[in-house]
């Protein structure tokens, strides 16, 4: 195998404006004198793995210089012996798309919404290969067949919004493959997609790699996913390479404590469920996180009972027509104090709508939500306000769920002021500080603004905001999905601790079966607004009854297995 791409001692820094006449730089890749080096051979898949902020995307984007103008690069990026850092613009332009192609994370925003799929596919064929439009169209159709899009002739005329997320990503891959590149840079190509679609895309990439003989630089935060596809793995953290080696080596015999921690801190489907997850610091300190799983009282009082809950949206059709879209249909469940109900399903299955309807952030169409025997949905405003205290929600995106203009203190004091908890401001502030301590944050956080915190810290703050009201039920709407695996483990541990301490009941909405298995007692599987399966977490995983559930379980990345190679 000949070397195709060789990155040697790469360092990237971003200029961050001037302060006192000195240009401020933020190191994105490389720390101090240490740069990033690795090689990609021909017909090989190399995975760059790391958490957010590890510099993996910046490393990949600096190969063809798709970085913002304020980036400064040093080191060497050798493409078949030619240093791309010294290359001029025309050389780079000729390389981009022609020999090195890119696929990005979000297919919806990577495709231009005002051009049809066909027009976008033809563009690289005409500009790089000099094909005539008619020939290019025929080739485009061939490409769509290759990436497995049904009815390619019709799809050529379709606009991006008419395709599903998975199909859009297939189109992006088809565009990338149009000029038969030698290297495909795939930057988190499946992160925005459902697990089942992710599996299809991964399989497609593996197939294409074999048939076209191309090399893939695969960037991901998910070590388990990487294990299925990569030959070589490069683990990055904070801008430097922690460990690199073959997939077998990384998975069987990880040398670096960080790699070991990454492998361990994700809940898994196969192994026995621990009471707590290991976090990175535990690993690096050589501690082991133990503690017996807390046995739950199966006869705890029923706190929340949902009967035949339904929510419809009305879509306009034609000039006067309306069509009913049933987002949630006939959902029934009971939730006991101190228990966790997991809700899984793909995007669009109605799980978030169901959660919002429970809190009446959406008005339900029919059904009953009995909280302590009283129907939440027919309460008058005053009573409703009182009930609001008892059921709270944590949202998915920690970057959007805190008001950026409020200090953390204001954010935490506001709910207490609204509900008249605590006698005066001093008392409320005191309580807010205690809660910050409870979710594992420093007292100093009180006067700061949300943008000064990381995603995991913000999610802790969001949880603390809910706790100010002493709720009994927490709806966790994909509350850990946007977090890095190590941070995810910390937040999951925190949720467990809080449940044990305060007897909270959770409704845990997630697309991630492994996480749901870790935290839930009972699981609802939703599809197209309906509950297709409902059983205890262990039963669902060991003996799924429905085809759909089996498909979901099968799609979860399994990591590196000797058979997969």
């Amino acid at each position, binding site marked *: 195998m000949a070397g195709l791409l060789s990155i040697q001692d790469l360092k990237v820094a*971003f*200029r*961050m*404006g*001037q302060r006192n006449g000195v*240009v401020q730089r933020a190191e994105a890749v490389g720390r101090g004198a240490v740069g990033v080096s690795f090689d990609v051979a021909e017909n090989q898949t190399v995975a760059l793995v790391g958490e957010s902020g590890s510099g993996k995307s910046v490393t990949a984007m600096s190969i063809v210089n798709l970085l913002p*103008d*304020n980036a400064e690069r040093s080191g060497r990026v050798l493409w078949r012996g030619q240093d791309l850092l010294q290359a001029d613009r025309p050389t780079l332009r000729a390389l981009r798309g022609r020999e090195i192609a890119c696929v990005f994370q979000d297919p919806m925003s990577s495709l231009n919404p005002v051009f049809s799929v066909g027009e976008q596919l033809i563009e690289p064929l005409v500009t790089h290969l000099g094909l005539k439009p008619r020939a290019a169209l025929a080739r485009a159709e061939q490409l769509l067949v290759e990436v497995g899009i049904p009815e390619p002739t019709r799809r050529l005329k379709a606009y991006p919004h008419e395709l599903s997320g998975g199909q859009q990503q297939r189109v992006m891959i088809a565009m990338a493959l149009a000029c038969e590149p030698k290297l495909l840079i795939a930057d988190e190509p499946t992160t925005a997609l459902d697990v089942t679609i992710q599996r299809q895309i991964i399989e497609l990439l593996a197939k294409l790699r074999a048939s076209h003989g191309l090399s893939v630089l695969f960037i991901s935060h998910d070590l388990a996913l990487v294990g299925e596809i990569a030959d070589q793995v490069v683990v990055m953290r904070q801008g430097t390479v922690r460990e690199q080696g073959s997939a077998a080596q990384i998975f069987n015999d990880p040398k670096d404590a960080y790699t070991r921690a990454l492998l361990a801190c994700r809940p898994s489907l196969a192994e026995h469920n621990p009471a707590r997850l290991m976090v990175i610091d535990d690993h690096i300190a050589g501690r082991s996180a133990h503690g017996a799983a807390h046995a739950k009282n199966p006869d705890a009082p029923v706190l929340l009972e949902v009967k035949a809950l339904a929510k419809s949206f009305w879509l306009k059709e034609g000039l006067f027509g309306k069509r009913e879209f049933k987002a949630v249909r006939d959902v029934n469940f009971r939730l006991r104090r101190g228990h966790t109900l997991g809700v899984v399903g793909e995007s669009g299955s109605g799980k978030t709508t169901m959660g*919002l309807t429970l*809190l009446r*952030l959406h008005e339900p169409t029919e059904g009953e939500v009995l909280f302590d025997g009283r129907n939440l949905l027919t309460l008058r405003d005053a009573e409703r*306000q009182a009930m*609001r*205290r008892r059921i*709270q*929600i944590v*949202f*998915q*995106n920690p970057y*959007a*769920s*805190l*008001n*950026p*203009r409020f*200090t953390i*203190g*204001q954010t935490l*004091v*506001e*709910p207490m002021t*609204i*509900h008249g908890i605590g006698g005066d*401001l*001093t008392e409320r*502030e*005191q309580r807010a*500080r205690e809660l910050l301590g409870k979710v594992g944050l420093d007292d*100093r956080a*009180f*006067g*700061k*603004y949300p943008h*000064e915190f990381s995603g995991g810290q913000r999610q802790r703050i*969001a949880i603390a*905001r*809910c706790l*100010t*009201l002493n709720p009994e039920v927490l709806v966790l709407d994909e509350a850990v999905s946007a977090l890095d695996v190590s941070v995810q483990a910390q937040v999951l541990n925190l949720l467990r601790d809080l449940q044990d301490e305060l007897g909270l009941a959770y409704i845990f909405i997630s697309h991630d079966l492994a996480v749901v298995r870790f935290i839930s007692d009972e699981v609802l599987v939703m599809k197209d607004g309906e509950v297709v399966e409902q059983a205890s977490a262990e039963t669902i995983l060991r003996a799924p009854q429905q085809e759909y559930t089996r498909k979901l379980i099968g799609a979860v990345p399994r990591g590196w297995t000797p058979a997969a190679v």
Partner: protein
Amino acid sequence: MNNAGPVPALERSEGVWHAAWRRFKGDRLGMVSMAIVLAFLLLIAAAAVGLVAKHWQQEVGVPNAPPTLMGPAPPEATGAIEQPKGPNVDISDIDPLAPKYKEWAERAKQYQTADTVKAETLPLGGDRLGRDVLSKVVKGSQISVFVGVLAAVVATLIGTLLGALAGFFGGKVGDFLEWLYNVFTAIPDILLIFAFAAVFGRGIGTVVVILGLVGWTSLYRQVRAEFIKHRTREYVRAAEAIGASTTSRMFRHILPNVSHVILVRMSLMVVGFIKSEVILSYLGLGVPVDQVSWGTMLADAQGELILGYWWQLAAATAFMATFLIAFSLAADAWRDALDPKLRGIE
């Protein structure tokens, strides 16, 4: 909110406005513009309390006195009428008032008469009545900027309130406000201004009301769009989940997050309204005749220019241009400072 007794003082982080001010300070052009705007505001404040330009209506110079730099106007050619020679004709025997002249002259001696010496030149020249153009332009700045800022405040209040309602509630409320917006934008502005002016009559208050009522539409659309965007954001949902009222969500949660849009839009409106006031006054629909603004000065200048008296036009234009350019540049610098996306690009 930090009145806690026993707890140690908290370190408070830099707020959004602090950070913006820090970024603004780094913008040299913005700082110079801001200094000019502040100087203008000081001047206007001084004029408002009567420290300067209090006597702008006094005719201190000869009519159309030229600026000092140019020196006094050459004496007008008196023409070629020849002085008649010979003694004065005595008409006292046919003048019925002749016996009274002496008496009157005696009486006139009891009063002191002093001929005021009118200045031949004035710093920036004089108008056709001999009023000092410098005082006029300072006083005019006060009226013009006052009208522009106040009208922008009125328009901002209307636009923000209606935009917030339309964006937050949507549905029937939104439809009604959209209809109102469409009615207002369908009529040409100038026509609307004429209609309001005809109903309300002339006066500074009228100009403010007219411009406010006509000018809210652009801000309305922008605020409405921002509210539509923000109302489904998770932090607003989270506020709803903790039981925050509708008003609190609209004005305590969302409004501060869109305030930079409103501020920048408002500063643009100030510029626009100052120009509109000038046009209105020029057309005779603006400020009353006993007051002065940049617009009335330009209207005066129309007649003077033909006679070659350009200084009133020049003074009003220079003041207006300086203020508006400085104000626009400062507003632009503020926009940059408030937009965190531009950080890092020097």
